[in-house]
């Protein structure tokens, strides 16, 4: 299936001021007596026209399998939003075996597969493969761990330009490092969780961010951490149909992570932050690292308002302080967590190093025991209802 991202102007909001047509460096914008329109063939997606537009009408990007012609756009009274893009359940190939294996290894530690939360949006999956990847351009790459920190974590932003890459919070992408392995075979695909909300790393931009830790000798992580702005990267995906954010403002989300396992939770949190709502859903984050300097996004995380997210940090290597792990923080907040576990709107997500799941499991069991809940009975219910997700590596 071909999927393109088409730049269009909303005729309801547009005031026909001609600003965009004058701003466009490639003459992609034209008008008739009715509408201002964008030529799919000419538009490079450079966004030069976007900030000068006084109305915001210019900032519409629809997923389409067949781009709208200029003539069709002239006839519009409004954007054909209901006809935007092919249905998400249009036939897509199954994920490549290597991806299925990686996903299974990450998610099935405690038993069989868990369905997506009932309220989650339907994801697009497997739009691009190793054989037919989409080429993204690196829009930025910076280290986000402190200067003195041993751990070297990078925030890498990839831009898909005119190609569609629709994704949801919680999904992953595959990156194929160039070159060949020692046996002369093409390299295996590497999976990375997306750290941006579906709106894009910058709202309205066709981009997403990854949070990647450099691993000594690791081919994939060193490739990604060394990318320079402007480099081209072959991307497969998006992948993942279960570890998805509930699309319900009343959903409580308990997010437990270590290190770069924070990536999907950054996406969840940004999704909520950029789309304020009147729902009752709470966000609780339990985040473990060795030191504050090694905690990805420590600075921005500290600036988030308390009404948005309840942040609990556990540091295991701060000199002069007792070692703390995320399960210790879970126990500290036992009362609140017990209250949330009683609530059918509560979802639990665990993402990080293998082994953390067991510690969390024991902590939840303790919390339940002290609060007249039965964890061994509750956990299967949560799993069955798509409210307990684990992704570890």
């Amino acid at each position, binding site marked *: 299936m071909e999927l393109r991202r088409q730049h269009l102007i909303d005729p*309801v*909001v547009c*005031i*026909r*001021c*001609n*600003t965009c047509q004058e*701003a466009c*460096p490639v003459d992609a914008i034209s008008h008739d*007596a009715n509408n201002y329109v964008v030529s799919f063939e000419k538009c490079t997606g450079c966004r*030069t*026209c976007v*900030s*000068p537009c*006084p*109305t*915001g009408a210019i*900032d519409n990007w629809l997923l389409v399998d067949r781009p709208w012609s200029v003539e069709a756009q002239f006839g519009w*009274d409004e954007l054909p939003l209901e006809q935007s893009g092919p249905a998400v359940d249009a036939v897509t190939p199954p994920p490549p075996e290597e991806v299925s294996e990686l996903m299974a290894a990450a998610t099935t530690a405690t038993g069989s597969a868990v369905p997506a939360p009932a309220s989650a949006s339907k994801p697009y999956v497997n739009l691009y493969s190793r054989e037919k990847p989409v080429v993204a351009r690196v829009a930025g790459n910076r280290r986000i761990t402190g200067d003195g920190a041993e751990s070297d974590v990078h925030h890498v932003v990839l831009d898909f330009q005119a190609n569609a890459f629709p994704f949801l919070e919680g999904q992953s992408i595959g990156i194929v490092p160039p070159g060949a392995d020692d046996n002369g075979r093409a390299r295996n695909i590497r999976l990375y969780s997306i750290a941006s909300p579906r709106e894009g790393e910058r*709202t*309205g931009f066709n981009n997403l961010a990854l949070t990647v830790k450099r691993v000594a000798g690791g081919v994939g992580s060193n490739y990604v951490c060394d990318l320079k702005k402007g480099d081209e990267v072959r991307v497969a995906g998006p992948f993942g149909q279960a570890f998805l954010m509930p699309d319900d403002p009343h959903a409580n989300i308990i997010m437990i992570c270590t290190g770069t396992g924070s990536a999907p939770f950054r996406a969840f949190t940004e999704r909520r932050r*950029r*789309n*304020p709502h009147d729902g009752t859903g709470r966000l609780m984050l339990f985040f473990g690292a060795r030191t504050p300097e090694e905690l990805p996004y420590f600075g921005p995380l500290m600036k988030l308002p308390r009404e948005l997210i309840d942040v609990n940090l556990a540091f295991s290597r701060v000199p002069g302080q007792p070692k703390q792990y995320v399960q210790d923080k879970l126990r500290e907040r036992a009362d609140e967590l017990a209250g949330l576990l009683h609530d059918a709107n509560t979802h639990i997500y665990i993402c990080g190093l293998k082994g953390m799941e067991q510690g969390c499991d024991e902590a939840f069991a303790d919390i339940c025991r002290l609060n007249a809940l039965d964890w061994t009975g509750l956990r299967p219910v949560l799993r069955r209802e798509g409210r307990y997700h684990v992704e570890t590596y």
Partner: protein
Amino acid sequence: MSSIDYAEKIPNNVNLSEDRRLQRALESWQPHYIDWWKEMGPEGTATSEIYLRTAISAEPDGWAQFGHVRMEDYRWGIFLAPPEADRKVNFGAHKGEAAWQEVPGEYRSALRRLITVQGDTEPASVEQQRLLGRCCPSLYDLRNLFQVNVEEGRHLWAMVYLLHAYFGRDGREEAEEMLARRSGDADKPRILGAFNEKTADWLAFFMFTFITDRDGKYQLCALAESGFDPLSRSCRFMLTEEAHHMFVGESGVGRIIERACQVMTEHRTDDVRKFGVIDLPTIQRYLNFHYSVTSDLYGAEVSTNAATSYNMGLKGRFEETKIGDDHQLDGTTYSVLHPVAGGFQMIEVPALNGLNERLRLDWAADVAKGVERWNKIIAKHGIDFRLTLPHLAFNRAIGHFADIAVDPAGKVISTEEFNRRRDEWLPSDSDLAYVLSLMGGAVHKPGQFANWIAPPPRGINNQSVDFDYVRFA
């Protein structure tokens, strides 16, 4: 890219620091301007932080930078559009000569007058709108009002820069006068009539930005064609900002219409005033008023002044360079509607003398398209009502229709009938009082809107509708 240095006292992209004399002159005008703004600018905003669009360069990627700005820290500057290489005088007697970088001596006073009249409208509208913040229907709208106001202020700067830079002492005196006149003042009124009218409520404000600022747009378009290159470049950059004002007006009235239609459908009634919204007939009367008063701004239908400005190469037509004729208009004619014996007749006049009317009709066609978009909102609700523009001769005070009485449909009637039926066509005292009665306290909670207006479909610069567009100290 000609980037603008905000560390300078007067941010600019005209190398002001290289002209000490001019820099000193403008720096001595600046405190007078700030005093004027404090006295006549939007009330009670000095310490607020407002989510404003500020230019950091005159290129497309630089002139729309958004962020919260403290009003008292706001800096107006002088920005010209980037120069066009080898630009020529594109019309009139000097067509084909290189565009002037200095004022031609013989056209000095005509050009000064054009710039002064344009410049005078900018502070005037700020004065007209200064009390609207008291009854803003939302933070979103309050922000838009301030954005319009600061840009009108900047447009005054643009014209004052030209006066200071190119017209010596006369120019400096004109610049001082800009700050001395006051909208609606009996002794020192603003130059043009529409700019002495009151803007007492938000419907009037939206109509003004939709209709009267659109006159501004067409005047700027005509001046952007000028053979005097600094004026052309000033106006071209002003036009990029002007589009926002049109948007505020069109979407503002559109949202009032949307709300009226919602209430009409919900309660199955035309009598929506008892639900605290503005009825469509009142909106029609406001439209009639603002349209006719703004029509007067174009001046007399047949005008030798307009011919002279064109011939001199100072003020062109709308999209002059896109018109396929000789751009000199000698010996060609143009049909202009005239009042003739109880009716109207199209009469051919020399094309040069019909330029005011031509610009007015370009503007009127543009207004009509916007009104049609409003009608689409009404039609979408399945309501049988259409807003229409009144006849060009309706309620005119300037030009050759000023002496006759005409109803909105274009029927010539007696003055007695006009006076008797005036309140059917123009906002009556009770209309104005009703609309004013809706303008209660200001709505300052993010995401909340006064009952008489619908929320916009989207926020500014991709922010949500309930973003805190204005933060109060």
